[in-house]
């Protein structure tokens, strides 16, 4: 992997910049984890890579998400999407006025996110880590990235957790716009919202202080 430029490193994978047949691409490589049993390590890395590639190829049909270009056992070559990370935008908007103006200029931003999640849930995909850190914002569009924890699921609970993660990370106003668009785009939204309210009321989630990892 040394011939590629490392652009990001997460807990589970390393991201490299590359190009594939002339297309601007990134490579997501699930590297060996020395700490665990070799056979468990292989199983987790291979299964997750395969699953993520499959979900990405389905998801990128209905929302802006990286298209899969090439797949290996522990590497996915995918289309590189440009844009600014939403969590960075939220942080600068909280810190200074210029960022705020930027956010306001893109007033449909949160509605667009609602539309995208509605589309994903509509085809039975849950993102699994639906936070601002995994949303890229370009001039007129938003894209969803990092499907590493995504799953094919029609479980109301899983979908409600996607909603919850976003709700925790944005303001009430932003959430209202996001929610309205989600409701409009997904006919099963009422069930999901009901479950979301239930999760917020119940044991562990209610007991747990509600703070997203973006704040400190």
């Amino acid at each position, binding site marked *: 992997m040394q011939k590629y430029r490392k652009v990001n490193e997460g807990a589970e994978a390393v991201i490299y910049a590359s190009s594939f047949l002339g297309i601007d691409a990134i490579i997501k490589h699930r590297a060996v984890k*020395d700490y665990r*049993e070799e*056979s468990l390590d292989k199983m987790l890395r291979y299964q997750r890579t395969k699953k993520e590639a499959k979900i990405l190829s389905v998801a990128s049909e209905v929302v802006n998400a990286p298209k899969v270009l090439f797949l290996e056992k522990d590497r996915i070559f995918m289309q590189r999407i440009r844009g600014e990370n939403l969590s960075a935008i939220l942080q600068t908007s909280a810190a200074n006025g210029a960022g705020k103006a930027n956010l306001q200029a893109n007033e449909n931003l949160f509605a667009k996110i609602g539309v995208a999640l509605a589309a994903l849930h509509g085809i039975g995909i849950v993102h699994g880590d639906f936070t601002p850190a995994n949303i890229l914002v370009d001039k007129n569009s938003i894209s969803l990235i990092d499907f590493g924890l995504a799953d094919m699921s029609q479980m109301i609970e899983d979908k409600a957790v996607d909603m919850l993660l976003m709700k925790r990370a944005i303001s009430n106003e932003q959430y209202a716009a996001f929610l309205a668009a989600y409701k409009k785009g997904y006919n099963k939204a009422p069930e999901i919202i009901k479950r979301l309210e239930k999760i917020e009321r119940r044991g562990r989630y209610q007991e747990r202080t509600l703070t997203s990892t973006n704040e*400190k």
Partner: protein
Amino acid sequence: MIILGIESSAHTIGAGIIEGRKILSNKRKMYPISNKGIIPSKVAEFHSKHISSLIRDALAESKINIEDIDAVAYTKGPGIGACLRIGQIAAKTISRQFGKPIFPVNHSVAHIEIARVMFNMHDPLVLYVSGGNSQILGIINKPFRHYHVYGETLDIGIGNALDNFARSANLLPAWGSSVAKVAEGGKYIAMPYNVKGMDFTFTGILKYATDLLAKEKLPDIAYSFQETMFSMLCEATERALFLLGKKELILCGGVAQNKRLNEMLQSIADSHGVKFRAASDQFNADNGAMIAVVGLEMLENNDHYALSEATIDQKFRADKFEIKWQL
């Protein structure tokens, strides 16, 4: 400043005395565990029988009189109600009788804080693994300063999972270390692996491993059971390290003495330039000194609790306990 700390949340009754950050005495007695678990009222009886002599022994070893202490701290929770009450009553009696300030302490935070203070760390990520608890925590300042739970078991604690398996396999107490012993040299068998973000569950793999007892060799099952559960903890911990960018990692709680878990976390820490330390066994076992350490921090911060506020709370979560002092 001299603090007396009293711990009585589960099967161990303890009295510890510290002066500044130095431990003068740390006495404890453990209720003898049978193979069937514990009956709360019997344990409470045991605690009430031994509490006075334990405090006396601790004072004698510290070469001080009860009048010499500056405050008394006790475990408010989490734990077994009947047991917590014994420590609470002892602390309130001392506070009233000798006019000493009283401090209710969170048990989980005490396990973390004694390790943090000993290692002189200031912003660690913590993996706290015990019988009933398995949590990944870190300090956060909003809405008040506390150990925020970033991830945790969504069903049972890892210690309980190990104990439960050990009983099914007819191993001897202490079960966790019996599993570790029998696991040596085992071969790996794939088992259910369940991590969601930074949360994890253990009942699925417990059922799977227990059912396998009839079919496979015990060392292989024990090894795979332990290895898979530890890998789940490690994956969640590594994710938290990345997300939060912490440079210090503490392992504490009853399961922290496991060598294999230490080895795995050390490897993760090394690969990310993180400083890793595991709490020493004397502080992983329930003890009074850790309660005293938090009591001292509360005293130095000029906290004040009226006797009527010296309550117990069986479900006192770590993240409900305000850390008013600077780390």
